[in-house]
């Protein structure tokens, strides 16, 4: 098997297992990690799917992956912030900001 099958397979695997974990794990942080793994899988596929054996790598997917990574960092940061914030709040906390019954 040639490398233009191996890496895509890796991508598929990463995406699959990431998705599975995203669905399966209740813990927020794991969900967050899981989407990152999914993202890695997509990146691998983005880079390796279009590419034929022997050719150099296509710059366009590279750029896309770069962008993707940055976006994922931002998203991860926000997700973590939310998770931690959530951990800090007890049910009904802050409700009084909102309405008063």
């Amino acid at each position, binding site marked *: 098997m040639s490398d233009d099958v191996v890496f895509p397979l890796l991508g598929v695997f990463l*995406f699959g297992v990431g*998705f599975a974990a*995203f669905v399966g794990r209740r813990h*927020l942080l794991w*969900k*967050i990690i899981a*989407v990152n793994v*999914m*993202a890695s899988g*997509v990146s691998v*596929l*983005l880079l390796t*799917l*279009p590419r034929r054996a022997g050719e150099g790598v296509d710059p*366009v*997917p590279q750029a*896309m992956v770069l*962008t*993707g990574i940055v*976006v994922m960092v*931002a*998203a991860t940061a*926000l*997700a973590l912030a*939310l*998770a931690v*914030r*959530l951990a800090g*709040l*007890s*049910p*009904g*906390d*802050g*409700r*009084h*900001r*909102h*309405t*008063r*019954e």
Partner: protein
Amino acid sequence: MSDILSPDVLLPAVVLVPLLGAAVAVASARAAAATAVITALLTAAIAVLLGRAVVAGGAVTHAAGAWGAPLGIEMHADGVAVLLLVVTAAIGICITVYATSYFRPIFEDEEDRGVRFFWPLWLLIWAALNAIFVATDLFNLYVCLELLTLPAVAMVALDGDREAVAAATRYLLLSIAGSLLFLLGVAIVYSGSGTLALAAIRESGMDARAAATALTLMTTGLAVKAALVPLHVWLPPAHAGAPAPGSAVLSGLVVKAAFIIVLRLWTEAFPGSLLAPGADLLGVLGAIAVLWGSLLALRQQRVKLVIAYSTVAQVGYLFLVFPLLLEAPGPAWSGTMYHLLSHALAKAALFLAAGAMLRAMGSDRLDDIAGVGQKLPMTFAAFGIAGLNLAGMPPSGGFIGKWLLLTAALSSGQWWWAVVIAIGSLLAAAYVLLVLRAAFLQPRARPLRHQPPWQLTAPALALALLSVVLGVWAEPPLLLLGATAPDLAP
């Protein structure tokens, strides 16, 4: 040096201006509000001018970096796009005005209601929306989606109570997953077609199976963001938990953006797929959404939740377009778009009105707003008018949309969709009545805590009236829509 008013300038400007505004709003907390107002006016002006240009001279295309597709990215503003831009602008101005007052602390225990974060977030959302409406490039759409999602999530969490934060978290994670599904689709498309431009994909002679896979992944991913039943669970708490102006923009526009992308994919990139039963599947899901959403809306106890569930239902209407589009292209297309536009206006109006009620009455529980009709006539009028729009009552854009959709369903012999539409509008009337009724009851001896200033009443009313204008003065927009109906030759 090119003319400032040439569409070739206006088109990128409609995205760049709110982006710049956002940057400024981030930089200086003090100038944020002023910046937002100015940006809003500018953006609106640009949108209108662009609209005029398109009406006059036809669709406009702008090639970023002058590379042109497929090398670079193109922006494209056709009739639909400018209508979306203009309606967004209208809602945008109203929301901006509204927000200048909404976040003002009125209770002793309220200190910082996060307005200075609201401004940049809101402007970023606006930029993202405009960008999506004019986008023609798959990956560009992905970035736009993310640019839309992050601020939207922050919006939800802005009021900071636990329910809101939990909803925001759920919303974020689900839509990241959705985005990744979308991105996977993009990867497949790119490798299969060697291009990212929607129009080009169509001609690329891409392998059918790969195309199907890609479309599946992308549609599913977007279905999450568009809160299509059964993937709607995140929407009601999120939209009900956000501060009113946030809810307005989320329910009115953000959800629609995802749908627009789906529609673009199916009509521009993969028109062949409309032949497949997949279109009917989406239709069925839409139908379920209409019924399920409406029924649940009927069961809610809080005004904002009622409205949020109604969004679930109204999104369902939009997805009815897929089974109808081939049989009756004209009415189906115009009808759906028209429904989208008028619903955007109405839904924004509803949330703004609900927010005003909430601030004034201190609660938006149905039992607590008895007599709101007498206490807040303007707000209530706005709510009523917008509500009737949801129910598709004339004269309102909703009615026109309903009429066209019914025409599509019945002229294509698919009467069952007509039945769904009819029942849906009945249920809509029912849950609107749920709120209206409360207003006519004799008021409780519960004094207003706060007489809302004009900033809280006028925008809602304005939007509601706009949705009526859309119903009376429907010919020009419809002609515009009809002119830009997609050609679906596979």
